[in-house]
């Protein structure tokens, strides 16, 4: 039972980095970015390839940040300069990345079981599972602090306004195209970093590991908002991390009660649907109640 709990917290933390990226595009920029399903395995692929090729695990964890940023920039350029709708721009990059990821890895799957990773390096001095939790918490806190700082800077505020009211911020002299590209770059950098850490954590990179990632990220963001609220940026970013951990616990619980791992995507989708439609259902019920009493 304790093991089950710890494993979920570990996963919740490492996937929280991805969810924070989704939060930045989905909530701050108001941009539904599907690039995530491609940039997550991109990070894993680059990390796995670099580790098996003998690069230092730290480099193999940080280079994916740049790769992910590039993926985000491409989606951003397709959307702003190519005038492709946001959803389609993300799908195009994601689809292209599937081939690119296979090219990077040279095969559909790279195992990392006997390789040296940031995790094996870290756990040589600290016993497991503390090493994992410490390493992932450290990364998550770093990302959260970065966002909490960045979103209150002049550029960060312009980025928030771009998602909130593009007409207004353009009339105040901000290039909204540049802001969208910047936001997508940062977001996908985090997503790729998360992919790189997940690959090292689970011991392999796989071309298929990005499927449904955007929905898992969304689920974390929404669960966080429901549980913690989103009064201000620091609240909202912390809520995403909490949401990610709760989401992983819920998934582990679903497995524990007998669902198959192949059912998980369906469960996740249902979770997001319920969370997104609850306000609507509530308002319909309220209207009906008002009608029946009047």
């Amino acid at each position: 039972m304790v093991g089950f709990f710890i494993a979920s917290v570990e996963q919740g933390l490492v996937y929280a980095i991805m969810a924070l990226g989704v939060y930045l595009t989905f909530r701050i920029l108001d941009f539904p970015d599907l690039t995530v399903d491609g940039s997550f395995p991109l990070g894993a692929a680059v990390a796995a390839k670099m580790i098996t090729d003998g690069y230092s695990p730290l480099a193999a964890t940080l280079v994916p940040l740049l790769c992910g940023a590039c993926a985000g920039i491409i989606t951003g350029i397709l959307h702003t300069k190519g005038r492709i709708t946001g959803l389609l721009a993300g799908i195009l990059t994601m689809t292209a990345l599937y081939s690119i990821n296979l090219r990077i890895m040279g095969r559909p799957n790279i195992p990392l079981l006997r390789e040296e990773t940031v995790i094996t390096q870290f756990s040589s001095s600290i016993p497991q599972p503390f090493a994992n939790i410490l390493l992932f918490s450290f990364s998550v806190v770093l990302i959260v602090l970065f966002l909490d700082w960045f979103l209150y800077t002049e550029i960060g505020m312009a980025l928030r306004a771009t998602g909130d009211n593009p007409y207004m911020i353009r009339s105040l002299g901000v290039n909204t195209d540049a802001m969208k590209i910047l936001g997508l770059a940062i977001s996908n950098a985090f997503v790729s970093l998360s992919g790189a850490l997940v690959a090292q954590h689970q011991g392999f990179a796989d071309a298929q590991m990005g499927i449904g990632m955007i929905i898992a990220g969304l689920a974390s963001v929404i669960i966080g908002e429901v549980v913690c609220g989103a009064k201000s940026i620091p609240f909202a970013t912390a809520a995403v991390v909490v949401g990610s951990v709760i989401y992983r616990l819920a998934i582990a619980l679903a497995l524990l009660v007998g669902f198959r791992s192949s059912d998980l995507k369906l469960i996740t989708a249902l979770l997001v649907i319920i969370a997104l439609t609850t306000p609507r259902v509530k308002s319909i019920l309220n209207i009906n109640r008002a009608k029946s009493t009047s």
Partner: protein
Amino acid sequence: MLVIKNVTKIFNKNTVNQKTALNNVSLTLEEGDFVTVIGSNGAGKSTLLNVIAGVYSIDSGSIKLNENEISMLPEHKRASFIGRVFQDPMKGTAPSMTVEENLALAMARGKRRGLRWGISKKDRKLFKEKLEALGLGLEKQLTNKVELLSGGQRQAMTVLMATLVKPKLLLLDEHTAALDPKTAKKIVELTNRIVKENNLTTLMVTHNMEQALTMGNKLIMLHEGQIILELDENQKRNMTVMDLIEEFEKVRGEKFVEDRVVLAN
């Protein structure tokens, strides 16, 4: 100051929906001019403001501000020296950001935005003073989200934001049309005061003839993409709404039919 020369704007060129919104329009504003723009629906009033602001590119002609050609600059670059207030009070402010954050965004207009904190202590003091001058109690709501404010409060904020960094040109696009009469009157007073205090060169579109005659020092009337009437300060002073309608009918040789303009106040 602002020199618009032979500007033509055609929408949906070479399609069945082709429409000439501005037809060879020329207009000159001197430093400190406050020009009101009237005309019926579809006359090209908003298009005129939008081509100056860079929302639409022009098909031919030139737009010069202080001798510099600006018609090729993108909207966000022109925004560094042009202040704008829209008709929709929701359009000028970021709803999920706080009052002080909105003002800080306006404060950075025309400057390079970097990684400094978005709001400094000095800014906050200035915001408080400026908001106090509005007399709407907004100085006590610095950290409230703008979505909690009323339409009138938001429009007052937008006027303040458009002029917080003194613009070379202020564009007002029917900025009181969506407000109730009492609030509209307040915004008109506020606009007059801010324009006068800063000696701003201003172009204001309005549907309201009364407003067009009482505000500003010049008046132009647009019809079907052309300026059909231009009044200077002296001509304007002696005009009544009825004279204006008569003038319109004389120029156009047709009956003036728009209740909204006559009845609005």
